[in-house]
């Protein structure tokens, strides 16, 4: 009995002393923080993806509050939360938020096993970064997708997956938050953030090959050969050709899809257009 009493008293005393010590320490070393930072942090998604350009959500929150003190939070954008979150934050900080169109990641390579023959077999560390730093990979294309899925492991939103049939990554539009993690990690800079477009309609060049036409075509049947036909047919100056590679400026593109029909190799693709869907149903 005595022994139980002793232990209860001893433990109780330790608890009491520790709590007093902890209380004073927490008072003494309390960090003064702007209460708004806490509020803004709570509004942010908390994914810490870094898509906004800051180190995690709390970094973004600090920057937003600092921006509000200077009088503007324009230019700040949480790609994950989108306009909803930015509006709420603007409310909290008493600012006006500029709304912007949603973006989505697109993979600019269509070098499937059929389109782009494998001329060698890579037998080493299975990451894109490792292959890219040492060799051209398994195909004759030194610009295309390496297919090891660095982007898949970089995505925190489960929005990008390898398609085992094509060996290429595919973006799940609904899940993609356009945080840009895949864009940063892709050693060949194939992935690009483009405007999601009205109803999800998008037109882009699905190739990143800067080789001359004949060389590019030899490596991959759907490569952009830089022939310039799309540039000529475009009425809106949206298409430029640089280093044998065509690029469509999504701010200028009017989705007339003339270039899609004009492209001799089929390197320009349209996404989510009704016709395309029919084709998919037939197939």
């Amino acid at each position, binding site marked *: 009995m005595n022994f139980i009493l002793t232990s209860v008293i001893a433990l109780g005393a330790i608890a009491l002393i520790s709590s007093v010590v902890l209380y004073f320490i927490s008072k003494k070393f309390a960090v003064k923080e702007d209460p708004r930072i806490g509020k803004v942090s709570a509004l942010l998604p908390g994914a810490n993806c870094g898509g906004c350009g800051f180190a995690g959500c709390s970094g973004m929150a600090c920057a937003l509050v600092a921006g509000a003190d200077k009088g503007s939070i324009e230019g700040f954008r949480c790609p994950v939360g989108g306009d909803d979150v930015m509006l709420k934050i603007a409310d909290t900080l008493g600012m006006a938020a500029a709304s912007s169109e949603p973006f989505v990641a697109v993979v600019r390579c269509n070098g499937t096993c059929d389109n782009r023959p494998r001329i060698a077999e890579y037998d080493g560390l299975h990451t894109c970064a490792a292959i890219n730093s040492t*060799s051209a990979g398994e195909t*004759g294309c030194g610009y295309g997708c390496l297919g090891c899925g660095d982007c898949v492991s970089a995505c925190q939103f489960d929005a990008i997956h390898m398609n085992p049939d094509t060996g290429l990554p595919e973006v799940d539009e609904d899940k993609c938050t356009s945080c840009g993690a895949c864009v940063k990690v892709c050693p060949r800079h194939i992935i690009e953030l483009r405007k999601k477009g009205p109803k999800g309609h998008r037109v882009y060049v699905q190739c990143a090959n800067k080789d001359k036409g004949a060389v590019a075509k030899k490596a991959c049947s759907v490569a952009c050969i830089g022939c310039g036909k799309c540039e000529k047919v475009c009425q809106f100056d949206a298409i430029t050709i640089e280093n044998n590679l065509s690029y469509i400026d999504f701010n200028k593109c009017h989705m007339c899809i003339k270039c899609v029909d004009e492209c001799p190799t089929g390197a320009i693709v349209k996404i989510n257009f009704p016709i395309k869907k029919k084709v998919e149903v037939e197939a």
Partner: protein
Amino acid sequence: MRLHTFKIGGVHPEENKITADVKTKNAALPKVAIFPLGQHIGAPAKPVVKRGDFVKVGTLIAESGGFVSAPIYSSVSGTVAKIDTSIDATGYRKPVIIINVEGDEWEESIDRSEKLETLDEHSELTPENIIDIIKRAGITGMGGAGFPAFIKLCPPPTAKAECIIINGVECEPYITADYRLMMEHAKEILVGLDLLMKAAKVDRGYIGIEENKPEAIKLFTQLTADDSRIEIVPLAQKYPQGGEKQLVDAVINRQVPAPPAIPVNVGAIIQNICTAYAVYQAVMKHKPLFERYTTVTGKQVKNPGNYLVRIGTTFGELICACGGMPEGDNKVLAGGPMMGKSVMSLDVPVTKGTNSITILSGNDARRKAIQPCIRCGKCVDACPMGLEPYLLAILSANNLYDRLENEGVTSCMSCGSCQFTCPSHRPILDNILQGKGVVMGMIKARNVKK
């Protein structure tokens, strides 16, 4: 007698020097010769010919593109077909000059006789002369890395050269090109060493040869018996003894500090056997660097051999001459199995640094299945730079680049001893090299900022 060698780490790969006793043959002239403009470390060369120009053997086709750079000479006579891009050993397309071969017409200035010219007969040569000729002849390190040779002979003002070390180690398995050259042109190599010593203004020369080449050791010891300046150093067999720092350690027992220090900081200038021979030919025979000794080898190659190859000949043509590719999937290496680069097309040409074409077939061609790291520490024992490869690989795989730099990743010379010795067949070096690339980029960016 205890043989000299380097002190830390090292491994013992199977030798497989199957072509050691095969006499060197002249390789057939190629139909088309391809000259990459970046065959050396440094700025790529600038073409001085244009499409349709007729060139002879030994004509300058591209001039040096900067201080660290080297000119390129045609190895064939014919017409320039185009200046374009072509696949190189890494698989990426790089700028090249392509020449259609017609006949075999040499520049008149080249002395094609076999007569041995010695330095005594040419006392008019000054050190500056020699360095200038080496520079103009486009001679680069011919052991693989391809650093322009003349730069090593002009050490920075803070360092003073004390000796020349000729690298006759050839520690890579399979390769025998250096050995055949030593056996067939020993006297010329010694004149080359004389020239290098004069150019660097030193009076001490060493030739390091591994004990697995007793004939070469004997031959050179005989030839230099009455020359007190030159010492032949027999070395215990251990890979990577051919690495510059390891060789300095083995031959004169001095340790080169971590980068950016180079061997001349401890007084040594290293040149390859092939380079010494090329120097002899350039200075005494007025023959710029356009052909080299190359071994074509592999366990399943029908007629492996050593060849005197015109630079620009494609791998495919040389392999055909040796009986073609073995059946099945193969790995074709530019260089030996420890540090060679695997090529993804046989259209890759022989360059100044291609000391061997090694074909690995069957089981040798593929890596074995990767198992978990069992932390045995064998990679730590094997690393000749005293690093911890397992740790570097983990840090690199997890993108911890700051720590990676602290752990000395920049000292890694990618000899592959760690991966060679790993019982779990882990891609240690793949990981390290990827991380090293990032760290080098970081250092460069920092230096630019400063």
